[in-house]
């Protein structure tokens, strides 16, 4: 629906914001993005997974293997405090950007 160029810039922010409330595993993150956007945003595994690795290597999120009752073992990611700071930053920038774009486009 949206071009991949358009989506590229926001993947990291979307992942970070989904982890704000609680830790989630990779599959769940993909599904949540799809569900919350009403199916308009879809990130395939080949896009999503490297993003998770990248964020983890930057120290913004942290993965941990957890086995929940009745479920198979999964890697759950949580936001680190640095990740939280980055998310706040990105959110602010994003809002300002959207507002500016709207001004220009007359929306």
């Amino acid at each position, binding site marked *: 629906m949206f071009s991949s160029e358009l989506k590229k810039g926001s993947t990291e922010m979307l992942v970070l914001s989904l982890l704000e409330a609680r830790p989630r595993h990779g599959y769940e993150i993909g599904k949540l993005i799809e569900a919350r956007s009403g199916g308009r945003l879809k990130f395939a595994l080949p896009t999503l997974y490297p993003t998770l690795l990248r964020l983890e*290597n930057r120290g913004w999120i942290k993965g941990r293997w957890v086995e929940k009752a009745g479920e198979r073992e999964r890697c759950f990611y949580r936001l680190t405090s640095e990740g939280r700071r980055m998310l706040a930053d990105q959110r602010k920038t994003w809002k300002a950007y959207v507002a500016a774009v709207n001004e220009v486009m007359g929306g």
Partner: protein
Amino acid sequence: MRNWEAFVRSRLTLPGLTPERESRIVRELAAQLDDFYREARARGASEAEADAHACRQIGDWDRMAQDVWLADRPHARPRIDRLADRIEGAAETRRGGWKVMADLLRDMRYAVRQLAKAPGFTVVTVLTLALGIGATSAIFSVVNGVLLQPLPYPDPDGLVRVHEVVPQYGRFSVAPANFLDWRKQNSVFERIAAYAAGSTTLAGTEGPERVLNAAVSWDTFELLKVSPVLGRSFTEEEEMPGKANVIVLSQGAWQRRFGGDPSILGRTVNVSGAPATIVGVMPAGFYFPTRDAELWMPLTINPANPPRGAHFLGVLARRKPGISTDQAQAEMKTIAERLAVQYPASNANESAEVVLLHEQIVGAIRPALMTLFAAVVVVVLIACANVANLLLVRASVREKEIAIRAAIGAGRRRLVLQMLAESLVLSLAAGGLGLLLAYLAIPSIQTLSAGSIPRVLDVAIDLRVLAFAFITSLAVGIVFGLAPAWQVTRTTLGGVLKEGGRGSSSSGGRWLRSGLLILEVALSIVLLVGATLLLRSFARLTSVDPGFRPEGVLTFRIALPQPSYPQPHNRVAFYDTLLNKLEALPQVTSAGMVQAFPMRGDYSLSFAIQGRPPSKPGEGPSANHRVASPGYFATLGIPLLRGRTFTDRDSENAPMVAVIDEAFATRHFPNEDPIGRGLDIGNGTDGFYEIVGIVGNVHHEGLDSDPLPTMYVPYRQDIFSGMWLVARTNGDPAQLTSTVRQTVREIDPALPAFSISPLENVISDSVAQRRFSMLLLGVFALIALFLAAVGLYGVVAYTVSQRTQEIGVRMAIGADRSDVLKMVVGGGMKLALVGVVIGTAGALAVARLVAAMLFEVTPFDPTSYLLTAATLLTIAALACYVPARRAMRVDPVVALRQS
């Protein structure tokens, strides 16, 4: 259901990541694919449909692998490990050596990690070795560029110099007539050519300039096997007087002075007042006989009347294939001896000598360079001993780690290899840094040695220097790595673990450390003695009174071209005017001139004393001959001892007079009064010069040789076209430079003043090579001293740390601090003393190697030895005192509680 992990693993290849990282990624991707599968099944899809759905999630596995790798780069495995894997993979199909290589690579990576954990140790070690390897590589690059590189001409091995040999002087320049006979009569040379290097005035676009040139036999370029890039070389006819008005330019002169003009051929330029046609341009990089010669002209010798008594030519030849230097030498000697019989008046007792051109150029500098090279190898050995000691200490601290590794199955060979890997990592890192140091040092070496070391501008870091530095690093790594590796093999598992964990050292280790330290001190003594000897002889040399006062004097040269100043009276008129103008300058207190300057020029003539029986041809006395102006003596501060010097009345038509120096008077008039006696100078027919005065001796040949007898005559009675002028100023002589240029140009706009330099530089240039050797050896000796001090400090400090408990016990049972101080310093000083004794003996044994470089100091000069030993012991005491202070502060209670 599919095994998703196996599925992902079979498709995703991540060679760059560590195994742990790789399996985590595989596991997680598999988990997610499994989620897709389960979700599809939950939606009611068949097993096959759900499987296909999950498999579709990752379409392009290569792309996936690439993205994952990019995202996960911080966990990438070092390339070296991947290389080790590949080598090991290959090893399975090949022989055992590969396995060792793979192990070594892994060990080196392990070593890097271990070293990174001990940055202090690593930095000290690498810097120590880098100093050693850097100094060695720098000196090797000089040895390589000067001694080893072939000369920049094709087939350089065939090139030889041919000298006349004169009984009194040894090797001598060649007289033109002799050269012509050699050329005609020899059968051993393909070609033989003569040349005379000099300078000439070239009128270029920016006024007249003095440029270096050489007059060469017509086939010199053919002999050197180098052809012009533009135009032609000379023809045989152009060697005839009157036909020689052609020149060949160097590439540099063509570019700089004529802007690389491609249509330069055929252009006529003014060379020393006469027109000459440019017929050729030599290629870039070509030089002969010196690097800065800018143009060549044919050497003309009048075949009708070639001089046989004037010696001023250099002779170069190329041996025929199959002719050895000895064969060439034998024939040239035969020819010269035949000429000696044929022309007894000029050639009596003369012979000839053939020397390889390369040897001729660098032979004189070889001993000095080899001495420096030996010195620098000693520095490397000291650095090795130092680092070996550091590693020994480190190895004994790590005994436990090593014992545990042995316990879990590492063989002795493996452990030794591991220690060697660590030393190789250190030495290779130091080698890299050392090369950088050498690269940075080369320009300073070139500046410092300019003019005193031939070919020093050929010095550069080339492949050979790189290979040398690499091999040195490897060798150094193995040499200093052997000691700790040896110690490792002696470590017994039970012993160490039983000792309760504190690092301990076997007595073997302690002996090894002491031995290395003694070696270090001994080697430093050898270097220090050498450096002190050179320093003392340099001090002696520079305190030699040159016979004149150089401070405040500016010197420069003038060369009058024959066409514009054909007659003696033209030249006298010019110089009269110039001297008057110089003396009229407000900054100038006096001015004078001479035709051959102390330490720069060389001119001697034979003479006869009036009233004494004539000597046999070729056996008469000769002396330095100087043509001087009246103001010369006063300007240079040469003292008048008796009689008078010259005045303006000693003109062309006045009675001929001469002044001699003290050496002349002592040698030739030992018990007589020379004043009033007559000299027949040059054995000509000019009549006798009457001796009117005696002046002080001047070191014309340099500070390091005794003043030779010298006779002076007034310039108006024997004028030369080229003269050295001297002007004494009441300020900084260098500031007079432009005024001097201007003054000369006012008299003759086509005439440049050149070689302008303060007289003090002339003297310091004359000792440049000695200064170079002294400074370099001094630097090496200081490095050695520093390394020895650091080594001593390290060993004593380590001993103190090992003996803390013992010291505590001693203090608890009544030893006071001075006892501890005595014990610690005494232990270190004992080693230093043994080293000093051995080193002094070693220095006495090798000191004669520097004998040739000494001046008025014997190689066994007691002062130098005592000074050196005292210096080293003082530094050693300091190096021991620092850790001893720490030992004195040991608190017995704390020390005892440690156990």
